[in-house]
């Protein structure tokens, strides 16, 4: 078996576009769920808003790429407000129900036949990112080889910008949550009535957290759209949202770097198990070679699921979490 190949795939996946996309989405969910206790099960809707905003503004309206970015952030904020107004006064589970439904509505809307001319139906939208790559200082012959995996100049530029955004996002979250504002959010997560009784406008804080998290979702959508130079509706399904939650819990909720660590490990394992199983089949390793490649692609999710279960049993606080803090729940 070619361990060098497996390892280089793991490294590339750990720091690839998908890791950035899911990391940014998880930073947003961390703000909502990790710090404020809001169950937003519709993060994929915010990602779709980001991705389709740039695609449609550039292709259909012929505007500049950056107009699409601003529009995406505005629409994501509006979507958060619309979802928050009826639900944030209610118990946490209502937000979960409404957001998961809203995410499906958004996905079905952009893939619908009715709006095919506008959103591209199930094919999605392609080639709209030239405004972004125009900013790239990298010459067209720049490339990077990690083992057998090669990255071209566009991919390298996306990765550089993407990781810069991830770290700026972390810095922003860190600045916000260490402040008295962040303290109110954590208070709301623990017991919102107590915070209310101390004269804080809980509704406003929850709305702010929901909007900020949603805007991070939109940013994740931008990176996804630019990195693939395409958007397709089926990426924005509920499984995307739950991958985001898995990443957040894996890394450690309510930790600034939890989402980043989570996404790196998650994608290294997801892609690593895939190439491992495939090359094991090729080499003819006993038991594993009973499967074919298609089956192996499914089995890796079982293995990842098993891994997350074990993590929840032996380290429920995630990698960066504090066990002592979690144990307080039991009282």
């Amino acid at each position, binding site marked *: 078996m070619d361990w060098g190949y497996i390892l280089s795939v793991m490294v590339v996946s750990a720091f690839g576009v998908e890791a950035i996309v899911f990391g940014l989405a998880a930073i947003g969910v961390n703000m909502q769920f990790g710090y404020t206790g809001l169950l937003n099960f519709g993060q994929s809707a915010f990602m779709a808003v980001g991705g389709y905003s740039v695609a449609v503004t550039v292709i259909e309206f012929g505007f500049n790429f950056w107009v699409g970015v601003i529009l995406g952030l505005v629409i994501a904020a509006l979507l958060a407000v619309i979802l928050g107004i009826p639900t944030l006064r209610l118990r946490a589970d209502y937000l979960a129900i409404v957001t998961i439904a809203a995410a499906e509505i958004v996905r079905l809307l952009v893939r619908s036949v009715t709006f095919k001319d506008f959103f591209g139906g199930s094919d999605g939208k392609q080639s709209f990112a030239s405004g972004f790559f125009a900013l790239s200082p990298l010459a067209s012959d720049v490339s990077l080889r990690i083992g057998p995996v090669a990255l071209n100049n566009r991919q390298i530029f996306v990765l550089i910008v993407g990781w810069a955004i991830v770290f700026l996002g972390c810095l922003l979250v860190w600045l916000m949550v260490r402040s*008295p504002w962040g303290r109110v959010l954590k208070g709301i997560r*623990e017991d919102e009535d107590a915070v209310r009784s101390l*004269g804080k406008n809980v509704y406003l804080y929850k709305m702010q957290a929901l909007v900020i998290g949603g805007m991070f979702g939109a940013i994740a959508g931008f990176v996804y759209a630019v990195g693939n130079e395409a958007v397709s509706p089926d990426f924005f399904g509920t499984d995307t949202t739950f991958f985001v939650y898995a990443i957040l819990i894996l890394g450690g909720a309510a930790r600034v770097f939890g989402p980043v660590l989570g996404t790196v490990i998650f994608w290294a394992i997801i892609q690593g198990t895939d190439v491992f199983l495939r090359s094991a089949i090729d080499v003819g390793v006993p038991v594993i070679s009973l499967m074919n490649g298609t089956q192996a692609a499914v089995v890796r999710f079982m293995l990842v699921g098993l891994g997350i279960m074990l993590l929840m049993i032996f380290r429920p606080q995630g990698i960066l979490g504090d066990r002592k803090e979690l144990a307080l729940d039991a009282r």
Partner: protein
Amino acid sequence: MPDSPDAASGSRKDAAVRALADVPRTPGSPKPDPILVADHVIRRFGGLTAVDVEHVEVQRGAITALIGPNGAGKTTFFNLLTGFDTPDTGSWLFNGKDIAGVPSYKVARLGMIRTFQLTKALSKMTVLENMRLGATAQKGERLLASMFGFLWGAQEKAITEKADDLLKRFNMHAKRADFAGELSGGQRKLLEMARALMTDPEMVMLDEPMAGVNPALTQSLLEHIKNLREQGMTVLFVEHDMDMVRDISDWVIVMAQGKVIAEGPPDEVMRDEAVIVAYLGGHHDKALTSTGVSFTEEGEDQ
């Protein structure tokens, strides 16, 4: 706090008792200087009328106890007054200002602060963070300002000093770095009270301050409540422990089946025939002094 703690040590109790001496011992009697006046407050849950208070006044600067048998509507009345629940009808004035329908957080900002029957310590935050959260008008609690530490750093320092002072007064200073979830039930009650004081309230509403507190801490909690009065605050509390009510309250309001059925100084109220029938039922000939007579009302409304 309205006055410094040592301004009139002990004398405020006499002042409160004197002020209430001539108040008629009838339900809904007018007080010489009411801080809170409620009228026609009715709250129904389906067919059940939980609260039906015709008129009630609470004297400023006094410790008033709200007692009554289980299900009398005391906690519901508390929730209504503090904006945590909405009545079917009714109006009430706090410091002459109509606060019916005002959301709970605004009620708190006006100076009427409450604690809860089931203590709401924020378990995954440290004791000090709990305290800091109580401080009002924090610049760093605004989203845009939060990112710039220099805007709120000085205020944070002042808040921390104030929190430390209060923690020392409540003998909790050694616990300041512990998670609130690690505290005992009684310590949580103390923390909740201290945290409420961070808001500089005018009126403190305590919902069963003694429930679940071990006897060793009871005495210290009692002293703290008396101190609130000495600092010029008004206290209204719900309690089941008769010894405690007798010990610290200047005035007692008795509720039964949602209505105010009696009012008066503790000793007189406890001799009132209506109270004995309503509150103590058939057990009125038993000794009241057995320690910690506290009928907990877990789940009455929360």
